[in-house]
């Protein structure tokens, strides 16, 4: 028991030390170089701003988390669906891939005004941007997982008279899972980027919106407090999906801690 605890502690210690060191250098650097608070507020000033504005920050944080998760959920549904299709069918792959790349190459920030025209200012543009930015890595990864099934594995099942659906259920799907979970870790942080970008210009709620208002009032520490909140939420969600990955596809890690 104690061993397990100390092992967990030892895996958590290095990242904690890095984060503390990073904040420390930031703090001391600002003090030593005499950097103005309007340019780069120190971590302590950011923390103070966080405490001062807590009641304003949290509703906005929940809004951002909400739009992020809804967009992310949509990205999972459609990304897995499309990934399976283009992974299985070489025809669909060659037909759809160029278009997908085209869509993915469009800067998502440039789509914000378009969504404002279509849906008005509010929650919808943030959800859609979060969705669009997370969709591509999920679809591509799932497609890769499905498409790279070893032909020998396929033969094992085909020689038993397995149907196409059997093949998918017994081999294609489980085979794609490590790719899927790997993409989730990338996609969740991208989703945050997406929804905050949308909130910057096209919302009257959310962390992004709060940061715009704060900066127009020269409340720079509050801007940074907003950034910190987004960063922390990103780390927490990443950790959740990393844990989920370890549990769901442990076989892909071959027991290496």
């Amino acid at each position, binding site marked *: 028991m104690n061993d397990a605890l100390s092992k967990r502690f030892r895996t958590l210690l290095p990242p904690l030390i890095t984060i503390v060191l990073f904040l420390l250098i930031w703090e001391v650097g600002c003090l030593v170089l005499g950097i103005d608070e309007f340019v780069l507020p120190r971590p302590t000033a950011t923390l103070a701003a966080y405490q001062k504005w807590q009641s304003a920050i949290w509703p906005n944080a929940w809004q951002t988390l909400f739009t992020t998760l809804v967009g992310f959920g949509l990205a999972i549904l459609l990304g897995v669906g499309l990934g399976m299709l283009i992974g299985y069918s070489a025809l669909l792959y060659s037909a759809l891939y160029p278009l997908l790349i085209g869509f993915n190459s469009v800067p998502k920030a440039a789509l914000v005004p378009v969504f404002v025209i279509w849906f008005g200012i509010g929650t919808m543009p943030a959800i859609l941007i979060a969705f669009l930015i997370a969709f591509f890595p999920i679809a591509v990864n799932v497609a890769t997982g499905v498409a790279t099934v*070893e032909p*020998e*594995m396929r*033969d*094992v*099942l*085909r*020689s*038993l*008279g*397995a149907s196409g659906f*059997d093949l998918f259920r*017994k*081999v294609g799907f*489980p*085979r794609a*899972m490590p790719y899927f979970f790997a993409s989730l870790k990338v996609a969740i942080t991208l989703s945050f980027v997406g929804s905050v970008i949308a909130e910057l210009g096209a919302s009257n709620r959310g962390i992004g919106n709060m940061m715009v208002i704060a900066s127009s009032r020269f409340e720079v520490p509050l801007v940074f407090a907003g950034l910190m909140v987004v960063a922390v939420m990103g780390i927490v969600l990443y950790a959740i999906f990393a844990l989920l990955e370890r549990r769901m*596809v442990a*076989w*892909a890690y*071959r*027991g290496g801690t």
Partner: protein
Amino acid sequence: MNKPTAPPVCVDLQHVSLRYVSSGREVHALEDVSLSIGQGEFVAVAGPSGCGKTTILKLVAGLLPPTQGRVLIDGHPVSGPQKNVGMAFQNPILLPWRTALQNVLLPLEVVQPHRGQFRSQRRAYEERAHSLLHTVGLDGFADKPPYELSGGMQQRVSLCRALIHEPEILLLDEPFAALDAFTREELWSVLQALWTERRCTVILVTHDLREAVFLATRVHIMSKRPGRLIHETLIDLPRPRALEDTFKPEFVDYVHSIYGRIGQVRA
């Protein structure tokens, strides 16, 4: 061959040829191969690499259709993947997300009638898988994932998987080629025991002549591409054959004479 006591024909290849196009070039894999295998026979096919030995297995399994000729199983033409066939390959090809036991159970989840009763009969099926794992000496490894098993152990699991649904025909594609000599010869004995117990029809593709002579009732030699069956040797050695027997003169003579034939093919 066709003595009155000959068993009914199980696998019958009649003047089978196979050609396919690979990277723009026509490959002539098999040329007029006729081979008729009685029920419960153990036939080995040996020959130089790339001569189309594996192709024969794929034809029998229904994974490939012949360009010419017919493939019959129990008198019925093969038109698609077969259900009463078990296959093991040079690589074990276990599914890495399944334990050894779950890998062995896989065919029962796919092949009727087991598939339909898999849930209700799960206990009995697991029992069957455990006893099969026991036969190949894998007691206590049922719940291990493949990557925790050695190559020889994985190949044993793969053999169990090929046999769990009690197929009428067992197709073996150089199943021991990737193993070290000791493990390989140990598995010969395991396979011989399994075959003696079940008496399924076996086609073993190999380039190890000692393996062929040790296991088979009949050894065929294939020519270089396009593959033809050019020679047949009945192995009239008593069973069960023990590993020490491989040093006896009769055994060595068989290997030697077949080796001579292969030499002619390759020249």
